[in-house]
């Protein structure tokens, strides 16, 4: 493990420069005030113990309310129960409470909260408020930008409730709370030198996502490398793969591809 961390540090420190628009987590920085972005997340997850592919479509709309506050609303669709249908929605807000800026550098911290609602059946011990469970989450994120290189870490507490349509959380109320933590690293690879806003940016990211159930003590650790393209300094496409490294939780489909498409409208309101 030590070796992996060391190799990761070496890989990123070749030229210490950055990017923090992570695929699997949010950075402490917010969207610009008065901007609106539309995003479409596609999760193509491989079901364990079957040859089935679960496709989750998650369209979202996000807005920068002020320089410190942003909100996001998402809707959840999937074909997990044979038929492709709407399963729920979530509301997310993030408030940046610390910002230490210098040229090409910052250290920022933010607090966030999520409310999620889902109608589908409960089919796994893993608690996932992004398209599977009804519940709420609150956490803190800290992000360090150093030239073209960015590091970010998130810790949050989540509590799951019964899903809609009488789909009960069947793993016991003592096992309904989890701690989620993530660690993300991103690097701006291209362009080497900026000339204008139309240049395509290429970012490489490696992220880990983990969960520990405070009741059962069961956990998972996933890793997710991804490639991000930014077009015209206002649109982005992320392509990545999420892979379980270790887990003793019951999980339906932990491994799979994800594709995000997003477009930002600046000064939209």
């Amino acid at each position, binding site marked *: 493990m030590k070796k992996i961390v060391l190799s990761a540090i070496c890989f990123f420190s070749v030229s210490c420069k950055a990017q923090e628009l992570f695929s699997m987590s949010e950075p402490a920085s917010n969207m610009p005030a008065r901007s609106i972005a539309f995003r479409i997340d596609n999760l193509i997850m491989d079901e364990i113990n079957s040859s089935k592919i679960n496709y989750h479509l998650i369209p979202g709309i996000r807005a920068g309310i002020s*320089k410190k506050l942003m909100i996001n609303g998402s809707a959840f669709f999937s074909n997990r129960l044979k038929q492709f249908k709407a399963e729920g929605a979530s509301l997310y807000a993030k408030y940046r409470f610390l910002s230490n800026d210098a040229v090409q550098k910052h250290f920022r911290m933010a607090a966030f909260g999520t409310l999620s609602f889902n109608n589908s059946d409960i089919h796994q011990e893993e608690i996932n408020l992004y398209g599977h469970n009804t519940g709420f989450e609150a956490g803190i994120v800290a992000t360090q930008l150093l030239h073209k290189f960015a590091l970010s870490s998130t810790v949050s507490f989540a509590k799951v409730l019964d899903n809609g349509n009488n789909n009960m959380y069947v793993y016991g109320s003592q096992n309904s709370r989890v701690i989620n933590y993530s660690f993300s690293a991103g690097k701006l690879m291209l362009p080497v030198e900026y000339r204008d806003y139309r240049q395509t940016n290429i970012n490489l990211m490696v992220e880990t996502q983990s969960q520990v159930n405070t009741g059962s003590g069961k956990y998972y650790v996933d890793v997710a490398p991804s490639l991000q393209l930014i077009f015209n300094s206002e649109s982005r496409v992320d392509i990545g793969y999420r892979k379980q490294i270790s887990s003793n939780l019951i999980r339906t489909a932990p491994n799979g591809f994800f594709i995000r498409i997003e477009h930002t409208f600046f000064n939209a309101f």
Partner: protein
Amino acid sequence: MKKTLLLIAIAASLITNAQVNTVSLQASGLTCSMCSNAINKALKALDFVQDVDADMKSYTFQVSFKPNSIIDFDMLRKSVEKAGFTVCAFVATIHFDKREVKINQPVTIQHQTFLFANGATTLLDGNMLIKFLDKGFVSQKEYKQHAFLAPPPHSYHVALD
């Protein structure tokens, strides 16, 4: 008390015939072009701004103004902050017509008051680079060196750059 004296001084300031030509500001806290573009578009959206020329390598934005418009330096700073970043250098190019200024003697130019914080008596003539020194116009580190009392609205501590 200090603030009252400052207000009295500003009320009795010299009104100078001078023209603000451009503002060059440097933003901090960003690297990527999407962040830079957010600042670029926020500055362009201001009604008194004619054009913004962004130097993406140095994160510097050269702002020019519409003729006969009322330039609001605080709005320029706030636009950078609303985009999610911080101004770390802010220099206005102002054309003066032979104006002598003394330290802390307020000078009013187009409804905005400048308090020259450095030097002895200086003759301002032609295009001069005027650097803003108040909180939000310099880096947090540099601000700590001056630590000026917050001036009244549309008043600024400045120095010749």
